């Protein structure tokens, strides 16, 4: 796939540095045992070095969100939609964090430990702002100064990238995720990725209606209606989809593909919190500055 830039050694190194930092934090005093059902809260808790003892769908989390690293001792609670309460009970958490998505589990979980709810995705509200609030609140609750540092560091980083990207061509960006070879979903201005674009001073090419997340699957032919855009492909993709798509005459004829304006980044959790936002920003800064120089 010659037309798609991969992320480079620089990204890998920065990732490794971030991971190392996380490990150091965990080595400090463990703090209360916490558990969560929500992936956005899970990555937040891991990133600020909380003592996580149980979380959901860890097999999938390690593949989709990739980082932060999940320590081996964390108990898997099964599906987010139907968490195993008995396994949660055996993990003996002191405190459980939950989001509005899985609120229906609250009554049963509160029998195990106190439940605190933090919403990151709510209709009509900015997930980035909510993620900042949730991170600060959780940091306060667990007395983790790393939380405030993470919020400030990410804001600084986005500012830095913004200046860097201001020298670019100002083309709109279309962040998408492939469903199969013929469908994609697009992340609008009120999604987490859309918020990151806004903070980086980039224009989202998708101007249609969205509902605080990815919009419904769109036919791949609709890519033709946005000829000016840079396309950012965000995995995970189904295995056969990418190959089948890039083989097709339609894909090869797209202006973005012909003019080498397609960027494939690493896998990111689309319903993530600040770590996912930072990861997306890193990929964009890396990919776009690379594209301009090379």
């Amino acid at each position, binding site marked *: 796939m010659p037309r798609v830039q991969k992320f480079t050694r620089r990204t890998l190194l920065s990732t490794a540095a971030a991971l190392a930092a996380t490990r150091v934090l965990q080595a400090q005093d463990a703090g209360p045992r916490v558990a969560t059902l929500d992936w956005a809260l899970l990555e937040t808790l891991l990133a600020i070095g909380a003592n996580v003892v149980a979380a959901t769908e860890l097999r999938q989390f390690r593949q*989709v969100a990739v980082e932060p690293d999940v320590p081996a001792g964390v108990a898997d609670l099964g599906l987010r939609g139907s968490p*195993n309460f008995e*396994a949660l009970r*055996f993990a003996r958490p002191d405190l459980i964090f939950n989001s509005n998505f899985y609120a229906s589990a609250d009554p*049963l979980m509160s029998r195990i430990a106190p439940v605190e709810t933090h919403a990151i995705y709510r209709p009509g509200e900015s997930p980035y702002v909510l993620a900042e609030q949730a991170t600060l609140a959780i940091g306060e609750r667990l007395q983790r100064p790393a939380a405030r540092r993470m919020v400030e560091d990410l804001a600084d980083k986005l500012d830095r990238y913004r200046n860097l990207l201001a020298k670019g061509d100002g083309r709109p960006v279309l962040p998408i995720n492939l*469903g199969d070879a013929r*469908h994609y979903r697009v992340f609008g201005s009120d999604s987490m990725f859309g918020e990151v674009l806004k903070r980086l001073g980039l224009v989202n090419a998708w101007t249609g209606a969205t*509902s605080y997340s990815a919009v419904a699957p769109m036919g791949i032919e609709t890519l033709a209606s946005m000829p000016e855009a840079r396309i950012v492909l965000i995995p995970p993709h189904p295995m056969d*989809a990418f190959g089948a798509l890039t083989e097709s005459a*339609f894909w090869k004829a797209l202006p973005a593909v012909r003019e080498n304006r397609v960027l494939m980044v690493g896998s990111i959790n689309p319903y993530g919190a600040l770590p996912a936002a930072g990861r997306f920003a890193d990929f964009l800064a890396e990919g776009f500055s690379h594209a301009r120089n090379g």
Partner: protein
Amino acid sequence: MPGTASLPLHMPTGLPGFVPAAALGTACVASFILLLTFSPQVPGDTATAATLDAILLWNSLLPRAAIALIAGAALGLSGALLQRVLRNPIADASTLGIASGAQLALTLGLGVLPLLSGVSRELIAFAGGFGAVAIVLALSWRRGLDPVTVAISGMIVSLIAASLSVTLILARGEYAMSIHIWGAGALNQQDWNGVISLAPRLAAGIVAAALLLRPLNVLALDDSSARSLGVALHAVRFSILVLAVWLSASVTATVGIIGFLGLAAPAIARLCGARTTGQVMTAAPLAGAAVLFLADTLTQLLGPGFSDLVPTGAATALLGGPLLLLLLPRVHGFSSVTARADTSSRLLRKPAIALSLLAAALAIILALVLMLGLTDTGWSVALGLLFSELLPFRLPRILAAGGAGAMLGAAGFVMQRVTGNPIASPEVLGVSSGAGAGLTAALFLFGFPSPAIMLLGMALGSLAAFLVMIAIAGRSGFSAERLLLAGIAISAFCMAIVSMVLAQGDMRSYILLNWMSGSTNRAGAFEAWTAMIALVVLSAPLFLMIRWLTILPLGTGLSRSVGLGVLPSRLALAILAALMTAISSFLVGPLSLTGLIAPHLARLLGFRRLQHQLAAAILIGAGVLIMADWLSRIVIYPYQVPVGLFAALIGGPYLLWLLGYKERTA
């Protein structure tokens, strides 16, 4: 043979055949012209825009139109072949489980076992589809492939395959995307590859069908006449079957499940005046192509901007359901098979003692599932402190499952009495799917509705579906075949609504997917109390209505003559049954076959008097779902399988075995 088929020699005189055909053709042409005229244009500077518009026209719009025609024709031909070879007017890729089998195989092959990704999609789909048909036919072999048995087996195999697919999707946490678009059959194309792979297969299918035409004509006679005319019966049947499965599996592999088309196309062909096998074989592919083309063009025309309104496969199911209901009174001349009321050959001498034995068994099951469980380190028997600590997590879900099972047993029993049909049940009559449509409506009206509103929506949906079924049953004189056909139509219509929302991939789809899979995991005090109170309040009156339940199956005339108000009594029973269905499908999802199994088992055990049958159905229903709930908890610990799936896995094969077994011993 339990039933012999005859050719549909006479059509009721009404519209001449060419009128509907011409109307369909005109609609296709007109809508395509509209689409070409009004399809959205690419914005931007003129040169680029013109290039892109040309690409869209040649690489998207035209191959899409072509694939709609080809897939429609292939499904129409496949349906016509299946219906003829099985002598079954309700055979098609959906009712025989081909589509669900192919979908399951693809989900498994592409997602779970990446080693298989070297094998072609089509081969995987064919293996799955053929596997499903083989199971269906093997299950109904003993009953001479009688259409009703085939349809029940097909429906059960479909249910099991569909719920296994849903479980696999949920287990991988990828509920939102690919499989569901694809499952709902979207026809979007971005090159001619789909057309290039499907067109030669359709051509080969047409040639093979033409060659098999003479043997097909002979097959319409019964077996001995066919054999005396020198037809190698089994070889011909088998090759036609393989051809039909291959055609529909190819379509499924290329564009996903296109609901109902194989059933609708031959019916439309007959409506357009096709009489002989040759005419039906020619007209059915044309009708299929026209219907799919029209549906696909409409969903593009009505969608906002560049996007489709709904996946086309779901749209055809929407068209297909009502169309079939309309056609119902006009479809004549098929085998008049009715399922026998399955009273057991043996009779229980002391039903009261048998009932108390059942109750005791239920109590033992209850105690076992409360105590026995898995942990990270292996099996554990919870006693003492651990028991009381785990009780808040185990008891509510067990009560919810048990209560739902009991209500499904009772609801199935009432439906079988009210419709006078031994195969009626919430699942077969589409009442469970009606609840799904109601839930979908509630989700659209209220965004994030409270459980009470969700329940209300489901109750209204169930009631509407059941009342439609009673009306149909009344009009068609309670023929088992029509009732089944109508149930499949309603079910497909409601599930089409559900899968349209599923394909949107947002939070509403997530709620619906959770409902479909039927998990008792989050059951708490609300669910447990709902189940228990509803069970007592709704099933107690049934024991006072035993007189109605005795008289209603004997027919309207007799019921009136003994002074029974047919309409009010039916309505009261319908409301009770629909409420019980809705509440239990809220608790355990629509997939469990408990409502079909429990009353059957009660009769097969030898309970004769209705109050005993009802009580036994309630106890058996509760037991089945409690066992299923326990299994769902432990099979892939700490991950959990939806309980509805396990109920279908336990109950489906058992029921089929019993049907076959009874036939042999009777």
